[in-house]
């Protein structure tokens, strides 16, 4: 042992090359070792959920900066780095992501893109939301402006995913989730889109509720166009359901006795209340026009076109406003068709016969009250009568063979008189018309079939 002390006094010369070794080792190994430690530290953090994670190594000391989503997560991340072999000290520069209150998330849609904004609780939920947005919106560009924050309500992700589904049903607008309150605004893409969104929002996770729903629906439009050249009535737009559709189509067939009905209607929910009650009289008013367009948009009825004569124009303007349900608006732009050239009595008779061959004046069953569906036909008859101002015309009432002759006679007279009164009310001179009832004495078809009876119940215009 004593020798060792003696010898050790002579060991010092070797320290000089040792220092040289040391310098070379430090020079060549510092960077590779730092890189190695950084790689190991990064690998150790692989399974921890962090945002903006950054690792810098100086010598064997690691500076670790990251945004953690919980206190536990932060501590465990720190412990993982400290446990990496070779790490001497860890400079903790981690912090918790900021907590926000209220926790707001939003999805906003405009023409070209959907912007996701506000907050998202975790990177994973953020990417799931983006993925869902891409899936729900097809080719629409999705812009991510979400921040990561703490403080999300439970079931946040389920609620946000449900709301993302709804953004596809909007043409433009914004859906915002503030804590557990949902606010919606904008315009639905389709008719019924608003209702579909309301229905879907019933599935929001427990605790979530709709604070304000200001989604507007596109206008519910029904249009009818009477074309005198093609002799068609074209119906386009929407009806609430198949029953209303069938009723409207049947009414159109009755009211437009000579026109072919082109039915392009589609059934869709979202109709304003009182839709059928408003469209029926509006169609009746359109049937009295020579040419015209009816546009029903939400609760507004717009009728434009040409009436056959002055009194008709006045009646239509005044009448339809009264027939519409409450809260409905009516705008009429009705002019009067220019008078047609007069014709002589024979042509007049021919015109009457043609018109009455296409349609018959209808009455309430067993009574002398003219069915409003016949207003269009009567207007055409009145126009024709005014083209031969010098002809005297017999209004001849006929009935079918059912019932006793006396009452048929009386009914035919009353019905002929009712038509005459209608003509006089329209402004034609009373002395040109004679109302005659023929009962069932002049049938034009057999009284043994319903069809034959219907043909026999008629009013004829006979030029004398």
């Amino acid at each position, binding site marked *: 042992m004593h020798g060792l002390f003696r*010898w050790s006094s002579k060991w010092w010369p070797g320290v000089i090359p040792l220092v040289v070794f040391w310098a070379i080792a430090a020079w060549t190994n510092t960077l590779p*070792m730092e890189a190695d430690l950084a790689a190991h530290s990064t690998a150790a953090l692989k399974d921890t959920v962090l945002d903006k994670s950054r690792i810098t190594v100086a*010598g064997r000391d690691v500076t670790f900066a990251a945004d953690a989503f919980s206190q536990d997560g932060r501590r465990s991340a720190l412990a993982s780095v400290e446990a990496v072999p070779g790490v001497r000290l860890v400079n903790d520069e981690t912090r918790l992501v900021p907590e926000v209150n209220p926790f707001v998330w939003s999805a906003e849609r405009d023409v070209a893109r959907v912007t996701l904004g506000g907050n998202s609780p975790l990177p994973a939920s953020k990417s799931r939301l983006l993925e869902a947005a891409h899936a729900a919106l097809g080719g629409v560009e999705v812009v991510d402006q979400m921040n990561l924050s703490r403080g999300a309500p439970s079931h946040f992700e389920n609620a946000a995913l449900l709301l993302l589904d709804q953004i596809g049903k909007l043409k433009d607008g914004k859906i915002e989730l503030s804590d557990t309150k949902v606010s919606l605004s904008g315009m639905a893409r389709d008719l019924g889109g608003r209702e579909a969104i309301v229905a879907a929002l019933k599935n929001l996770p427990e605790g979530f509720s709709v604070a304000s729903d200001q989604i507007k629906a596109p206008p519910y439009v029904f249009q009818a166009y009477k074309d005198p050249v093609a002799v068609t009535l074209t119906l386009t737009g929407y009806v609430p359901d198949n029953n209303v559709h069938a009723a409207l189509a049947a009414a159109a067939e009755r009211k437009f006795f000579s026109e072919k009905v082109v039915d392009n209607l589609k059934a869709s929910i979202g109709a304003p209340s009182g839709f059928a009650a408003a469209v029926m009289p509006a169609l009746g008013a359109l049937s009295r026009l020579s040419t015209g367009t009816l546009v029903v948009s939400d609760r507004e009825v717009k009728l434009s076109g040409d009436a056959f004569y002055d009194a008709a124009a006045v009646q239509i303007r005044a009448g339809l406003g009264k027939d519409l349900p409450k809260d409905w608006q009516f705008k009429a732009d009705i002019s009067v068709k220019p008078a047609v050239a007069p014709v002589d009595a024979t042509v007049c008779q021919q015109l009457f016969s043609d018109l009455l061959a296409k349609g018959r004046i209808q009455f309430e069953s067993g009574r002398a009250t003219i069915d409003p569906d016949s207003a269009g036909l009567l207007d055409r008859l009145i126009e024709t009568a005014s083209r031969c101002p010098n002809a005297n015309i017999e209004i001849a009432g006929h009935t079918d063979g059912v019932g006793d002759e006396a009452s048929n006679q009386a009914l035919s007279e009353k019905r002929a008189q009712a038509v005459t009164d209608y003509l006089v009310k329209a402004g034609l001179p009373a002395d040109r018309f004679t109302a005659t009832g023929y009962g069932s004495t002049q049938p034009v078809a057999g009284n043994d079939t319903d069809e034959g009876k219907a043909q026999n119940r008629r009013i004829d215009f006979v030029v004398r």
Partner: protein
Amino acid sequence: MAYLATFHWGWLLASLLLGLAMGWIAVVHRGQGVSKSTSWWLALLAAALLATSLARVIPGRPGYWLDLGLMMFAAYLAGCAVGSWLRDWVLSRHTPAV
């Protein structure tokens, strides 16, 4: 420590061999050794550096360099001790034969 040893084993081996050679030579070296008081000061310096290293007060790269230097120095000293002892043992076996 284990990590440093694994990462720098080549340099530690080189230091050990250097120490072995120096220890081998030191036994028969006729030159002047360090005086006793200087040895004490040097030992004190080494202890102070060791304490600094263990306390981890020097941060970053200098801290690492100090650790590395001390490890290499320790390997060197161990090499010296083994070298000197070996040389002494070899000499003592040969002397009686002469």
